[in-house]
């Protein structure tokens, strides 16, 4: 695999990548160099001009800068708040322009279908009547919100901000691993990583045709304004954050700043006469669109959790009356449920009459008889995931699991099969990564972000997460994952 590129890489005997070998996995960088792709090959040449020490030195300086900038997430130990930077790998992950175009079309297709699906399940429920997926899976889903029944949203955009997790297997095909339709995070790292690369590695970035990511904020702002309740010509848009103690607060700051919208907390908002107002130094001012980074459950103590201190009493009433738009809408969590995911190819065909541009990973729904039987028979080959969890928690990777772990999983599957899905293990693609003074292959995924106002737009590239532990397939930041700058090269 990739012999041509490896020859080329070998030419720089002392170069950074001279001792790098992808170990039989699909290497994102080498494959991007194929077909004499000019920009990617130029990048490899420039990388090879570095020694590992040079690179490590600059990486350390970059890490320090992230700390001072406060591009951090917060970890709580028993008594202290600790600010951590998301580990950042300075060797960019590369995507060829033409390949990216296809991915971009694929994620937009998916978001389009998801929005039609959500409008349907809270409206006519044709998809259920036609038996495309089990009624119970939707209506009995813990993220299905009856309060949304018969409520429509501007431009049918329920999932205004979407993140789709893609992985590439040994065959070189991208597949969708997971949808994130509630409050997907990570986009701030995409933009900040790029800025950091431009500052710390001007010699690497210079004159390469890298598609820009810096207009994310303007795109977001435009889409949010388009979603204002009808009749509001100059909408006031805010971002509702749980506050400075939230681990993603930096991202909220970033988004508010980049989009030029006000960052509010629940205590800043008040509902009067079914209208939402912000408390300003000049008294109350009406708010029309809320990009909320708070889960449904905490949004409005009148409707959801009564003990929520983060939300705004009456917010759902105001939304239902059409006085304020919430982005994302309430109840989008059904669409990124791991069991509903299995039906997504059918959902795309049902609403769009098109084949999915990006396939799903083969998925066995353990709540279905055949799915469960197959999973139990092939447990040691499969990855089993609990449907309600996120962040990579509760996953059992069959080929890596001990006998005890497998037995435990088998018992859980038999007891509560509907709580799990199973997928074949994917040999995630790798990218050269600097870890402990050495450049080696590490597994990566990709999360492109789609913004949907009147139309949909995809941020070129997206978040590349990288599993920094050797051999690990788990890229989540809570479990030793880091990130890379993602370059769509033309």
């Amino acid at each position, binding site marked *: 695999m990739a012999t041509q590129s490896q020859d080329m890489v070998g030419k720089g005997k002392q170069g950074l990548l001279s001792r790098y070998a992808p170990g039989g996995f699909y290497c994102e960088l080498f494959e991007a160099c194929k077909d004499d792709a000019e920009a990617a090959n130029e990048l490899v040449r420039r990388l090879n001009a570095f020694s590992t020490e040079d690179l490590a030195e600059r990486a350390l300086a970059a890490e320090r800068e992230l700390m001072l900038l*406060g591009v951090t997430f917060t970890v709580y130990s028993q008594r202290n708040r600790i600010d951590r930077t998301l580990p950042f790998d300075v060797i960019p992950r590369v995507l060829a322009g033409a390949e990216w175009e296809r991915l971009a079309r694929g994620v937009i297709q998916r978001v389009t279908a998801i929005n039609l699906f959500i409008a349907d399940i809270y409206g006519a429920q044709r998809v259920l009547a036609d038996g495309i997926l089990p009624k119970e899976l939707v209506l009995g889903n813990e993220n299905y919100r009856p309060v949304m029944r018969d409520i429509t949203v501007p431009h049918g955009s329920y999932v205004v901000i979407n993140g789709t997790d893609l992985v590439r297997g040994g065959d070189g095909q991208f597949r969708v691993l997971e949808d994130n339709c509630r409050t997907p995070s990570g986009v701030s790292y995409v933009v900040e990583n790029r800025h950091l690369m431009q500052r710390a590695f001007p010699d690497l970035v210079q004159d390469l045709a890298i598609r820009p990511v810096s207009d994310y904020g303007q795109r977001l702002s435009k889409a949010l304004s388009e979603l204002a309740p009808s009749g509001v010509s100059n909408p006031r848009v805010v971002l509702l954050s749980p506050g*400075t103690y939230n681990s993603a607060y930096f991202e909220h*700051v970033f988004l508010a700043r980049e989009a030029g919208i006000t960052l*509010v*907390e629940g205590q800043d908002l008040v509902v009067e006469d079914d209208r939402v107002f*912000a408390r*300003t130094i000049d008294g109350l001012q009406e708010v029309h669109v809320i990009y909320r980074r708070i889960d449904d459950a905490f949004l409005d103590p009148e409707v959801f959790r009564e003990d929520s201190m983060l939300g705004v009493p009456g917010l759902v009433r105001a939304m239902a009356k059409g006085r304020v738009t919430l982005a994302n809408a309430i109840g989008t969590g059904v669409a990124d449920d791991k069991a509903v995911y299995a039906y997504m190819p059918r959902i795309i065909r049902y609403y769009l009459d098109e084949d999915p541009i990006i396939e799903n990973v083969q998925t066995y729904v353990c709540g279905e008889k055949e799915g469960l039987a197959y999973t139990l028979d092939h447990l040691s080959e499969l990855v089993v995931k609990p449907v309600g969890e996120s962040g990579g928690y509760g996953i059992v990777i069959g080929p890596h699991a001990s006998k005890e772990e497998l037995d435990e999983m088998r018992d859980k599957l038999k007891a509560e099969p509907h709580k799990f899905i199973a997928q074949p293990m994917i040999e995630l693609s790798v990218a050269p990564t600097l870890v402990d003074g050495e450049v080696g292959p590490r597994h990566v995924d990709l999360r492109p972000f789609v913004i949907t106002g009147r139309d949909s737009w995809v941020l070129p590239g997206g978040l590349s997460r990288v599993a920094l532990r050797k051999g690990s397939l788990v890229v989540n930041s809570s479990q030793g994952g880091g990130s890379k700058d993602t370059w769509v090269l033309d």
Partner: protein
Amino acid sequence: MTRLLARFAECVFWMGRQVERANALARVLEVNQAYSYDTRGGRNWRMLLRLYEQDEEFLSKHGGVTPEAVLFFHLLDETNASSVRSCIAQARENARTLRPIISTELWMQLNGFYRSLLDLTPVDATPRRLSRLATMIKENCQTHVGIVRETLYRDETYYFYVMGQEIERADQTTRLLWMKYHQFLPMGVEEGSAVDVSQWHALLRAAAGFQAYSRAHPANPTPESVMTFLLYNPHFPRSLLCAVNEVTDALSALRREHYLSNGALAVKHLWSFQSALHDQTIEEVTQKGVDETIDWAQRELVKATDLIALSFFINPATGPGVD
């Protein structure tokens, strides 16, 4: 675009206060060190606790009043909400909240300052190293103020910063005077003696006002002239009057330029405070007692803060904008 959130106004007001307080504390500790070279050193360290009405809090945590313990308490003690470390931690917390509306440079500098304070150990706050630490604190505070001037957008936000900063400055100047006054009176240092003159010099230096004072009063300092200077000089940035003028101007400009009808009571209060300061003479002050004047000034400042808070910040009962 929404107007400035009441919560942001409050955060920026306090950020201004907290940095100013850290700055003033570094100055007070340095001047105290200068006083403490005389024979009554031990007494001075106790005064430093009374200055901020923290004697009880201190004694509940520390055994005896030693220079080391007092310095640690004021500089690095995280459990003391008024220590320099705590002030800067709170200022940084406020800056974190304000990040969407302040410059990256403003945040980075304060974050870096906070981190360098975190790195300090008790030995960095001992008398021998005090001067170095005080200089580091002052320089960081002044850099912060410079970045505020250079980069903070001059909308409502800026005026709230200035009001916080100047109210704190006014308060701290009265405390500096109080300290001198209390060390001076009962100790029986003869007025005009070498010790006395050097203490007044130290006081002026603590306020970075020695040169300014020399321009206004070419003769040797007397208690009256230094007090007059620190209380009533309209041009010296750290004088009480100058700070009160700045607060009043900021509030007036805020209301005028941003068409705010609330805050009228606060303005009225500041006007009367201002004119009372104008009318006062140092003779009246010494007659009434310096203590009483200082108490009065501090009460006026507290009231100004309360009225500003009532008009503009989130008030659980009524929300902002009540008058």
